[in-house]
């Protein structure tokens, strides 16, 4: 199972990778632009990601924008809704309004507020159908 982590803070990257490595092999990128490129390349190499863990606040293009581009790409390759990659948005912002915006538009699968509570993360992963390996 491939997981793509998109996180621009060094410390958070290390943490996320540690937490998610039990679910599958993790690739880490640091901005929205890299996220979209990696996602597309993964499909082209026929080993797509099953999960994207992405922060909303990112350099180059932000999480919301990157998410839209990913969804748009999935549509262009003819993926049905149920086959789309699962996306968990993370945010350190006090009010999750921006997260909820993405969530409500149906593009993200779930959201988590930083600092991440490990138990909460595990709960979300289970909900989305991922199991520890």
């Amino acid at each position: 199972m491939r997981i793509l982590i998109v996180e621009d803070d060094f410390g958070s990257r290390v943490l996320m990778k540690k937490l998610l490595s039990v679910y599958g092999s993790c690739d880490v990128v640091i901005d929205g632009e890299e996220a979209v490129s990696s996602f597309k390349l993964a499909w082209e190499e026929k080993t797509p990601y099953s999960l994207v863990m992405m922060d909303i606040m990112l350099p180059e293009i932000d999480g919301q924008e990157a998410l839209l581009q990913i969804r748009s790409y999935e549509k262009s390759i003819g993926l049905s809704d149920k086959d789309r990659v699962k996306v968990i948005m993370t945010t350190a912002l006090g009010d999750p309004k921006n997260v909820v915006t993405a969530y409500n538009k149906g593009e993200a699968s779930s959201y988590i507020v930083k600092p991440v509570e490990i138990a909460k993360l595990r709960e979300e992963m289970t909900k989305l159908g991922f199991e520890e390996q």
Partner: protein
Amino acid sequence: MKNRILIVEDESIVALDLQNRLESNGFDVIDIVSNGSRAVEKAITEIPDLILMDINLKGSIDGIEAASLIKRQIDCAIVFLTAFADEKTLKKARVSDASGYILKPFRENELLITIELAIKRASVKKKIEENSNWLYSTLNNIQDAVITVSNENQIIFLNESARTLIGENVSEGDVFDHELFIHVEGGRTYFQYNDKKTDIDYFQTDIFDEDKTLLGKVHFIHDISKQVAFEIGLEKARIAAENSNRAKSDFLANVTHELRTPLNTIIGMNSLISELYIDEEVSKMHELIGQAAETLLRQVNELLEFSDIDRGQLKINISRFSIQELISEILGTFKDQIELKSLKIVDNSDDIPLLVGDKNKVRDIISCLFSNAVKFTKSGQIRIRSQVKENTLILSIADTGIGFSEEQKDSIFNLLMQVDGSHTRIFGGIGVGLSLVKELLDLLNGSIEVESVESEGSQFTIRIPIDISDDQKSEVEDNRKFEPSLSSTENPLSEYSDLVILLKEIDKLLIDDDYKLIEKKIKGYSKSHKLIELNFESNVLFRVSIAMKLKNKEKFKTIMKEVIVDSEKTTGGRL
């Protein structure tokens, strides 16, 4: 315009004669009637300028009665014609307010003069009435109360506003003694009527006739209660705002203190950890914790300094300092970021002697501006120029960064404003910076000028009053100056930072190589040249591989630079 005349005369010969004479003298005879009732009818419908009315008329009403009936309805001059000059008739005529009389038989010029005079008088009377109406209208429509009284304080005239103020049932003739109503108390003038106290502006003036005899007074009373209420409200709002501001400042100061306390524990404890024996993995975590805590501490300090200024608690400390040293120090702080972006730093400063001023605040100002310059410039150069002219330190920092527009120029000094306020947070930080700079400059009586062109760059110039130190003997200097220039192959390798050396090597790499091979090559080079130990984490290789697959050489180099800089931080040393 011909004057229009109605002839009321029952003797037709006299009537026709009159008509002839009038018409040949330029008057327009509109009609001839022979009795009073017809006269009234005609007058009301035709509204002549003048009526020549015979007093003795056949019919139910005579000329005088007809005249009074007409006068009730319309305004026109009436000249009586009468054959009799007896007392009784004349008396009757006088009472009726005629404009003139003519005795029959009459001479032509007598006729004409009387008519002219009559018309003239009527027109003057009309004018006077009009003016009077205008005057009364004006007085009754102004908001101020106007009361004219005689010398015995009897009301001669009062306008509508006065009636409202004093009472509807007051009228001309009543006594109005202003001293009963108008009081001055505690700097305010009041109008007191029954239980109602109104704030007013009061003014009175005497009225004299042309012989300078005092005829009476005019009182002007201007109601200012609305204004007073507004002012009171304004004062309340101002106090409320001040209180709110103070509460906010106290809150801010409190919050930042609350934030700093645990931070100190984190930083302190974390540094103690490094003294214990810990394995590599824990050591890395410890390093990361430390860095994150330092960053947080920096932001909190910026916030705290800002709130200190806000509450007026920041003091000025004077000491001797060297501006060059300050600049060097600041450049040193940003060394990594400068190298990462390969920015060229140019210092065009004059040779400036030791200065006397608030070193720390000056440092904070320059540091903040420089931080912005580095932050907002992706590539190119930053030029610093400092000079001292007429006891003023003039320092400018110019960059080739993203700049900002005219509209944004005004708001960049606002708290929390960053040029790019969206989530595309390329540039990090919380945006207290420039407003802090402004506050510090205000404290030092300095000023700042800004120029910018979008996508081309910006220039910030500060001016701070400063003195040149009398004692120019420099203290022992710190020789660790940062020199970011990358040129000159004459310098031995050890003069360059490891980053620079490695970057040159990376430039030679081919993007078509296998990335594992690249890792090997670079690590090998670093080892053989006794440079830093490079730490390629697996996620870096992943990102590099993406960049290579997309044939993005720029991205590739950027990632490699990051690796080198990060390695310097985490592994911390040469092999």
